[in-house]
């Protein structure tokens, strides 16, 4: 990106808007803020942003609708802001097309990391989809179905590979339990989170240096999983 990336913040709390504007401007982003859903949508249409930060609790319309309306015409990354204990809302926002979420209160490092990851993947998506994904010591060849760790091949079962491939081809994005289960096991097994737990444990054992503190295959409590390449988290 040649010019400074443009961030649109849609949040009705002025303090949050003020803080985000200060932090992001300091980090060389161009920041626009909107306090209402409609305002945010028209600002986005008038001056398409590179990333949207969206609060789920807005006075005029709910955040899910803003997500859905944005998704009608743009693939811009959307990060939603939500509070603890609203896992259902997070899942609903992700289903409506959001890419990621942050639980309030969040640290600036967390926010900036998510923004950077989202921007990087948005830029990559505009080109051809990557057929080889690198993450630390891992190389995942999606075309040839080959996974290597520090140069030596790792043997995976078919389901393990499908699961890894689905996560790795959406790096940085939070994928909900349901979407992973539907994609890997099929719609009939969409509620069987236990499959996912078992396979994720197996995958971590094979791929992570410390399976108890994974760096690439991350759990999003009550919501789903996220694949992170190195240096992104």
């Amino acid at each position: 990106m040649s010019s400074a990336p443009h961030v649109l913040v849609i949040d009705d709390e002025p303090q949050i808007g003020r803080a985000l504007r200060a932090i992001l401007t300091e980090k060389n982003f161009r920041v626009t803020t909107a306090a209402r859903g409609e305002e945010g949508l028209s600002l986005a249409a008038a001056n398409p942003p590179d990333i949207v930060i969206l609060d789920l609790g807005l006075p005029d319309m709910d955040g899910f609708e803003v997500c859905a309306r944005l998704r009608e015409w743009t693939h811009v990354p959307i990060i939603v802001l939500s509070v603890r204990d609203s896992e259902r809302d997070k899942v609903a926002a992700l289903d409506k097309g959001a890419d990621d979420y942050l639980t309030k209160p969040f640290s600036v490092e967390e926010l900036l990391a998510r923004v950077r990851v989202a921007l990087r993947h948005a830029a990559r998506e505009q080109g051809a989809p990557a057929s080889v994904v690198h993450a630390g010591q891992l190389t995942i060849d999606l075309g040839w179905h080959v996974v290597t760790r520090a140069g030596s091949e790792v043997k995976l079962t078919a389901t393990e590979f499908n699961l890894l491939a689905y996560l790795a081809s959406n790096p940085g994005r939070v994928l909900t339990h349901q979407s992973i289960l539907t994609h890997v096991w099929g719609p009939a097994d969409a509620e069987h989170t236990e499959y996912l737990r078992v396979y994720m444990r197996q995958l971590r054992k094979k791929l992570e240096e410390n399976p108890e503190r994974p760096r690439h295959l991350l759990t999003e409590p009550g919501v789903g999983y996220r694949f992170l390449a190195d240096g992104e988290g």
Partner: protein
Amino acid sequence: MHHKPLSVRLAGYASAAAFVLIVSLAVLPARGALGTAPIALLLLIPVGLSTALWGLGPGLVAAFIAFLSFNYLFITPYYTFLVHLPSDLVILVIFLIVAMVMSQLVGRAQAGREAAAAREREATQLYELSTALAGLRDPEAIGRVLVTQVQNNLGAEVTELALRSPMAVTLRLPQEARHPDRLPDLAVPLQATETALGELRLWRPTPPVSESEQRLARTYAAQGALALERASLGHAEARAHVLEESDRFKSALLSSVSHELRTPLATIKAAASSLRGGQVGWDSPARVELLAAIDDEADHLNILVGNLLDMSRIESGALRPQRQWNVLTEIVERVLDRMRHALGVHQLEVDIPPELPLLPVDFVQMEQVFTNLVSNSAKYAPPGTAIRISAGVRDPAEVLVEVSNRGPHVPEEHLERIFDKFYRITAADRVTGTGLGLSICKGIIEAHGGRIWAVNLEDGFAFRFALPLTLDGAAPLAPRPEIETP
């Protein structure tokens, strides 16, 4: 009897008449052999029995018919109502008097017995009603009992109970019956101390409703009104009790929380203002200290707010865990990761076997449980000692989790009470905390169908909780096994 239907009463008269005629005809062949006196005595039998069987009226009719048939069939000249012999006339007159008096006496005794039985029946019915009503607190249930009893005991075709607001329901029996077109045969108000609570109406196939039945209906209505009034008083009392409890809870919460919120706020304010005011040099190590303090205290506030939310949900019964199959290690690692900074002076040990089955728990709520248990342990355990989290399957249906520390023992008598709201063993000013953390743990664990308790160990203190290993009675499904492709 008043409430016998007309057809039954007519049948009584007819039977009495028939009885007398049959006996007369049966005796007829013997009229030559027997004298008039024995025949008169024989004819008294159906009179007496008729009165006993069918009551006073039929008895009198029997007496009169017996008199006529005696005169007509058995006194010369036969087949006339004439009397020739003076002795026959005496017998006839005495017969009439005896028959009348006897049927009167028998009839009265009979009526008395029946009245007594009716009173007894009424008393039993009232007793049944009051037993059925006792202990009912729901106005509709009370209404249903009342309608059923009236319907069954007063021989009603349709019974209706219209309760006024706030209940505002109309109950009708039989349920499929439509509202009759005519006015009710009996309507009794349900009179409470101040207002009428409703009206009891009944329709009968054969009016009229006797006086004793009206009395019974009124007694029923009074009983029903009493029960309704008692129920509404009970409700009001229960509501008042809940309100009082929640009021006491709120004021305890406020006093506990305002103190507890102010401490981190004071730290944050002091640190932020000194940084902003430029009192601290850019390279000063104090700067890093102050920033860390702000960060930590903000996290502390966040936990506090989470606890407050959980507490209010537990109090209002709105805490419903979203139970999903989860890996315990993941939950624990996440909590420790987040708390590592705040737990600087303690060592953390985790001993959870890798083969531990999946647990059906709400990830976020269990995070709060571990956060509270670990931060409580950290408050009491001496610096430098270890806080240990371990877990294992206890019996096939349960997992047992322990969070232990090297802290001081808790007196046995406090062990249970530490899970009560706002309960502190030590003086409030010595250890910080709202006194909510452990009671929230209890609320969450119990909402998961588990139990939590505390024990003194030989060299420390431990929280333990047990959780079921099944979700809606089922274990997690195992995915189909697979072979690794080369």
